[in-house]
């Protein structure tokens, strides 16, 4: 509420392998913390209600909607955003495959798609089409109609991450 003094908390988190310690208002959303406190604007906010998946990041390896998570929940956690998928300037197979197979057009769902797809292939290197659909259900794309996203993930399947 406007009349209350804003509470802040100090949190420590690891984002894309880098340690951060920062003071955040207790109601700060993780997506805003990543984008505006840490400057990692790769993560997008679409629907703000955990439906579209554009804001997906990995928290301790699991995909979560950063628009629904408070920044304080990330205290002590390991976060991977889309900026942390490529290593040393080299695109991850998933990223290259999205380019080669037309897995995006406008690119606003892409950070969430790439992060979620990377987590899928880490958990299941050879997913079936149904398994891809099940896993990617929480990521909406308006441009592609999803067909080329499925092909992008299939194109990156079969081998371990380059990381």
């Amino acid at each position: 509420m406007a009349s209350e003094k804003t509470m802040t908390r100090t949190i420590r988190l690891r984002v894309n392998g880098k340690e951060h310690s920062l003071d955040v208002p207790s109601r700060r959303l993780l997506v805003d913390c990543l984008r505006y406190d840490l400057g990692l604007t790769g993560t997008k906010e679409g629907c703000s209600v955990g439906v579209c998946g554009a804001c997906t990041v990995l928290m301790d390896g699991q995909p979560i909607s950063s628009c629904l998570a408070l920044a304080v929940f990330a205290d002590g956690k390991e976060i991977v955003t889309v900026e942390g998928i490529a290593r040393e300037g080299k695109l991850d197979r998933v990223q290259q495959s999205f380019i080669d197979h037309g897995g995006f057009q406008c690119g606003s769902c892409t950070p969430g798609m790439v992060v979620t797809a990377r987590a899928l292939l880490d958990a299941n290197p050879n997913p079936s089409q149904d398994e891809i659909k099940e896993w990617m259900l929480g990521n909406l794309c308006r441009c592609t109609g999803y067909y080329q996203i499925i092909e992008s993930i299939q194109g990156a399947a079969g081998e371990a991450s380059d990381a």
Partner: protein
Amino acid sequence: MTYTVVGKPLGQVEGPAKVTGAATFTADVILPEMIWGKVLRSPLPHARIVSIDTKAAEQMPGVLAVLTARDLPDTLTGRVVYDTPVLARDQVRFIGEKVAVVAAEDPDVAEDALALIEVEYQELPAVFDAEEAMKPDAPLLHPDYRSYPHAPEKFFSELPNVHSHVTWQVGDIEEGFAQAQQVFEYTFTTHSQHQGFIEPHASVVSVDSEGRAHLWISNKMPVRAQKLLADAVELPQEQVVVHPVCIGGDFGGKGSLMDAPLCYHLSKRTGRPVKMVMTYTEELMAGNPRHPATISLRTGVTDQGKVVAFQARVVFDSGAYAGFKPVPIVNIPGANSAAGVYGTPHVKIDAYSVYTNCVPSGHVRAPGDPQVTFAVESSMELIAEAMGIDPLEFRKRNLVQDGDLLPDGHRLEHVRIRQTLEAAIESSNWGKPKAHPHVGRGVAASYRHIGAGEANAEIRLESDGTVKVITPVPDTGTGAHTVLQQVVAETWPLPVEQVQVEARPELFETDSGAGASRVTYVVGQLVKEMTEELRASVCRVAATALECQAEEVVFEDGHCTVKGSSDRTLTLAQVAEAGSGKPELSIRKTQVNRDNPQVTTFTAQVVELEVDPETGQIKILEVVTSHDVGTIINPIGHRGQIDGGLVQGIGFGMIEEVVMEEGQVSTLHLGDYKLPNIKDIPPLKTVLVQEEIGPAPFQSKAIGESSITPIAAAIANAVYDAVGVRFYNLPITAEKVYRALRERDSNGE
């Protein structure tokens, strides 16, 4: 023809930036000292504003400014007609209209401050239905609409709330009906669909010390946005500088200023850069969704099954403002395709765009087409059945042909609807036995013109030997920049990596931007001509340096070489150095294509689906989408347009609806407004009926607004085939099918 770069499946030039998160969208722009704006919206559909008290909000810690209409110049804005206030002045006309704006250090603080603003309203009678709004006793929303800047005088109407009435006709409709032995009348209605882009509208404005407004905006026509902002805030156009950003999905909806004038005023007031990002709830209550439509058809047919007269009355619910419509008629141009893919000799189409106290409607991919195509392609089935003719045969008897004149004045060339339709049928299970009793098949077809407009470009040889194209057209995700790169590389020829495309809208004064399936055609054609011109200049410079004739210079692997002597060669960087300062190595041009080409594009689709008679659930078993195409410049992007448009069309046909009750949107987030997800997509078979004839470079054609159009009608026809229930309105949800089946069963059929 065989090509080296054209036709190759090149990934988008923006690809590496987009997959790593490096691409900058408007909401990603962060400037030093930047603050946030949030708007207070009207809770009433039609009311007089009696008073606004902003004192408590102003005093809240962290709030830097609170503005109402009284703080702003008395201007109106819009994409063509200027009828929309930046903030409501004395009157609100829809639930969601902007009434006040707050700037604060933090978006959450700005949001909190909105709750402290007190507005007293006096409610006015409201009207929520376009047909009702046209009646004599309806409340008038805009009594002064004729005086609005850029109101289309030619299309004024005497009917209440009708701000544009356009008639398209061919032949003599009375004579047509006189020739008909049978006349059929049907009425169809369609609903409001949001574009569904994942990036909500965003704007950032920073007013610099010289008073210039720097603008970052999710707008696919950034050059036009400079002009619109200048007019809205009363600045000279050269004082507005638009900065290029990626657009996170457009689908026709991102051509307005949205919150940019408010960002300007807040920035001017506070001396800080101001960002405003709409929430998705704001998108759904105050975006610019597809026009709901009522389409009444009257069709005259001879006993031989020939359609001789076709009359359509199309009423579009424009909502509270017409300012989101980007065309000079300030109406929905797709209405002119209401007669469908048929060569009917006598046609009259009347389109009325009508003010109501609903969310203002705007353009959505193929504006008007899915609405009227649902109507005409449903009606063709109804008429065929009534006359005892096979619906496919009935269509084939009436298909448009070479030389036919369309109601919009087009005389068509290279008409390929027959092949396109036949290919769709042949690739489907049409006519084959069905696996289950509640399986149905439906067909529908449409056409879409290739867009006209103004193109601008600059092309130059850079000192490092790359050829750079500067375009005002932003990246909206369609792959336009990649296509332009391919056009230049193929035309020259050069290795594709040696061609760069950069969006710099601020360098141009006018431009049509992206839209209407225009860019590959109008920009591609211009850039192709400019490439030839620059190449000729480069040859002349190289010839001087190589001491040969310009005609002897050839390009191999990105080098200039004297024909037949491979040792006499220069890199393009060396040519650039030799020609340094020569004006002919940098060309800038404008070209206006006023009319759509006579060649158009056709689409035919067959849907096979199964209806669960217990629940009404529709499961699509297969879609065949057949397209009349020319040369395909980039097969990845081309396919992406087909796939994406199709799924968007399925959403329109079956799932999506901005539900409004008395002007109040009840689908206020993406949990309630359902976009198709990855499990909703059907097995898809795409058929490309290819012939190298097209007005765009290398005999190519448009594709962006094709697949979205017939699918809803094909679904409706397939549902009828499956369970015998005909739907006259969209979307065809499971609930509607369920209710229709129960109603039919209770009637003892």
